[in-house]
């Protein structure tokens, strides 16, 4: 049927934009609460000082990035099973937001690590290095998408790469841990336990980042759906004018 696909895509896009609109007020309130708990409510860490507050944003972004990459995997699997391009766009939107959040993790990490661990980049920490590899994998995912035109092939290849990348993560983690435990670990985690207020601030921050991720992901998803609908309409117009 003429423009059947783009009608469906526009319908899905409308739903996801409406969902984001519904999320805006809770997201705003959560954001204000998260800023309050991170900067005012949570006490200043005695040893690390104010710089420790970056931790709430760092962990929030890290958790969200992992969640996003899980959705890239899930979207890929469901796409290959159902062949509905919606799931491919969901995976793409998740990867985009995931890469942004991983970048936040990789930028806030050194800012915190320099004064506390006295090093910008602690190669000895498996979390840090695994996150770096994760960033590489999903940037590669976006480059792969970028180099393929719109269509069924891009969806298929992206799904395959997303699945292989996700399977790889635990092996990367294990190998980096072995790599560093064989040689003496120079940097160990400072055994600072968290105050209850800090834990509460962390929970609020993680919740905020999660909602923020869902909102951003839905917006990007809507954009991809609009894009594909526009593409199909342009195609239809070209066919008619011929």
């Amino acid at each position, binding site marked *: 049927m003429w423009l059947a696909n783009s009608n469906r895509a526009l319908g899905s896009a409308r739903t996801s934009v409406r969902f984001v609109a519904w999320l805006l007020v809770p997201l705003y309130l959560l954001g204000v609460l998260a800023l309050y708990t991170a900067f005012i409510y949570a006490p200043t860490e005695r040893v690390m000082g104010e710089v420790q507050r970056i931790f709430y944003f760092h962990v929030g972004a890290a958790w969200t990035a992992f969640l996003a990459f899980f959705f890239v995997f899930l979207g890929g699997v469901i796409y*290959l099973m159902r062949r509905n391009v919606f799931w491919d766009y969901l995976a793409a939107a998740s990867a985009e937001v995931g890469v942004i959040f991983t970048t936040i993790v990789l930028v806030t990490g050194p800012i915190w690590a320099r004064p506390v661990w006295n090093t910008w980049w602690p190669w000895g920490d498996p979390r840090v290095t695994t996150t770096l*590899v994760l960033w*590489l*994998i999903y940037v*590669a995912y976006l*480059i*792969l998408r970028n*180099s*393929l035109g719109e269509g*069924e092939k891009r969806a*298929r*290849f992206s*799904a*395959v*790469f997303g*699945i*292989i*990348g996700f*399977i*790889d993560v635990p*092996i*990367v983690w*294990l*190998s*980096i841990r*072995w*790599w560093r435990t*064989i040689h003496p670990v120079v940097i160990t985690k400072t055994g600072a336990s968290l105050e209850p207020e800090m834990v509460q601030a962390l929970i609020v921050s993680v919740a905020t980042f999660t909602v923020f991720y869902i909102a951003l992901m839905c917006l990007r998803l809507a954009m991809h759906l609009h894009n594909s609908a526009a593409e199909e309409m342009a195609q239809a117009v070209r066919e008619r004018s011929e």
Partner: protein
Amino acid sequence: MNNLKLIWWLALKDLKIEYRSRQAFLTTLFFAVLILIIFNFAFDPGSNATREASPGILWVALLFPGIIQLNRSFQSEVEEGTLQGIVLSPVDRGVFFLGKFMANWLFLVAIDMLILAAFVVFFNFTLSGGLLWVLLLMVLVGIGFTAVGTVFAAMVSNIRIREVLLPILLFPIIVPIILAAVNGTREVLIHNDFSTLFRWMQLLIAFDVIFLAAGFLVFDYVVGE
């Protein structure tokens, strides 16, 4: 015809083409030797620091040129239109994957052995039994590298920027085997610590099994349709 024979035939076809032209083989070999030599210029040859870093140099010289062959293995199929022929023939896609994998892997191990010889010469290592362990590492690393690489090479074979794209996709994924290869080699050649070597070999075997299986299963989605 049974599947094992089919895999072997598919691999033999690629190896025969390569044997007759020797194009990828010589290019890859030359590139690898070039890397070994450049690193000797970049670092102070004969110093302890260079010796300590030499396992890393060896693996850079093996894995970077390895990309050339992977790219070629599907490029010629696309150019000659033979990929379609294979896809249309009543061969399971997984079998096709294993055939391609086998050819690429044998090619890589053959190159590896020659590079190892050049490495021993340029870095003044003594001939010892440890080199046989490095050879075993090469066989294991080759399996993982080729398994993932064959899937990705098939994906990029139709993309204009495939030469750049393949390493960008492949190297982040094979970080674990790069770590295992470099550290395993260092344990054998420099520290003589075999218990650690075996641990790295376990990791390599796990990686190989997981990604051979993954490649076998997903190849259906990569070619054809």
